[in-house]
């Protein structure tokens, strides 16, 4: 379980108060959270700046649904944000080189009955920026960021064989698979040769 026990206990006591965080490591770094006003986070493995201020209302227009990925799946999600924000406008008008593959993180933490965080945020999605588009209609301007996450580099999976040659490649000198050719029916993978 990725929720801490304290958070789970508070949630089961009634009144779940989640707070969601979005961090896009573009230049400048975009920081937003799902609530109102400012929120200060301490430095952790993702947030490099201690005491970084996440902005509340006025940034996030919606919160995306995201999948838990396993077995090498990759996912993609879109986040729509207010497009009148100066930092986001700057981002939208930036050159692609500055924002391409910028690291994006989504985190979650839970607040107690007095709106204090129960634990440090858990960064549930780590991805990179794939696309950024602006939408402008009468009276509405939004920026939509598409984030790819999971193993998304589209390489084919690296297959291996339980053959002496492959085992030698994985762990030189290891004889674990040295007798598997005895079980092979008809063919034996002999490459690579050492």
């Amino acid at each position, binding site marked *: 379980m990725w929720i801490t026990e304290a958070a789970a206990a508070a949630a089961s006591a009634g*009144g779940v*108060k*989640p707070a969601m965080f979005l961090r896009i490591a573009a230049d400048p770094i975009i920081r937003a959270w799902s609530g109102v006003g400012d929120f200060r986070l301490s430095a952790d493995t993702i947030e490099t700046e201690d005491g970084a201020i996440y902005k509340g209302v006025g940034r996030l227009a919606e919160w995306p649904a995201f999948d838990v990925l396993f077995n090498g799946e990759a996912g993609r999600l879109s986040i729509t944000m207010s497009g009148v924000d100066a930092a986001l406008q700057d981002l939208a008008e930036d050159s692609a080189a500055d924002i391409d593959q910028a690291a994006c993180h989504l985190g979650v933490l839970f607040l107690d009955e007095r709106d204090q965080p129960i634990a440090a945020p858990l960064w549930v999605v780590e991805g990179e920026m794939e696309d950024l588009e602006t939408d402008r209609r009468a009276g509405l301007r939004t920026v939509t960021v598409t984030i790819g996450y999971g193993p998304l580099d589209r390489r084919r999976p690296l297959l291996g064989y339980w053959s002496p040659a492959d085992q030698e490649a994985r762990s030189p000198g290891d004889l674990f698979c040295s007798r598997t050719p005895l079980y092979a029916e008809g063919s034996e993978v002999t490459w690579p040769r050492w």
Partner: protein
Amino acid sequence: MDEFPVTNFPVEKLRWRPASVSTSGGQTLTGPGQDASWDGGGWWVAELVGIDLGDEQALRAIRALLLLALGGVTRFIVPMLDWPLSPALSSVPHGDGSPFADSSEYVSGAVAAHLAADVSLRDTTIDLYLDPETAGPLQGGEVFTLVYPTHGPRIHMIGKVDSVTDDVYTVFIRPPIREDLAAEAEVDFNRPRCVMKLNDPDGEAWPWIVPGWEGKTDLRFAEAFDELS
């Protein structure tokens, strides 16, 4: 930032409330569902309903203000007009406890209060000192303003008094503190006011003029936050 002259426009109904956002988990098979709160503290909303614009002067004044409000872009400092609910003593005698010759006492003065300890962003449990010469004990439900260096004046409401020690009250407040403040900062119970913007996307606040040059309008304000950074 201009102050919105709320006192110039008598209202029929006035309501200030901390708005919040909650999501329901849906109706469950046999009982109440679960709810989650998403606002992380809430923000203030003010509704001034039934403002009487009975004369040209008032009409001109409201039109000028709506023009300044620019459909909700310009921010105003909006006073709360919540004085009856302040903890101020209703009347104060002379220093030796005696009243005036006609047995009346001083009408209550300003409440003197300040932060007893530093507060930091998003604190909800704070210590504040209340001068007992100027104010009665806090009970919960009182509102006060803290003036922040960059966010300006913001309103907070006392939800619960945890403990009282030597006129220092430990209280639970909402919304959470908006910005770091040092101890001794003034806690203003006398004139609660908040940085807000007009919430009027459809221009409904502009009064209809009816024959006889009368008009009525409603104004709605919402607490304004940094959108630009």
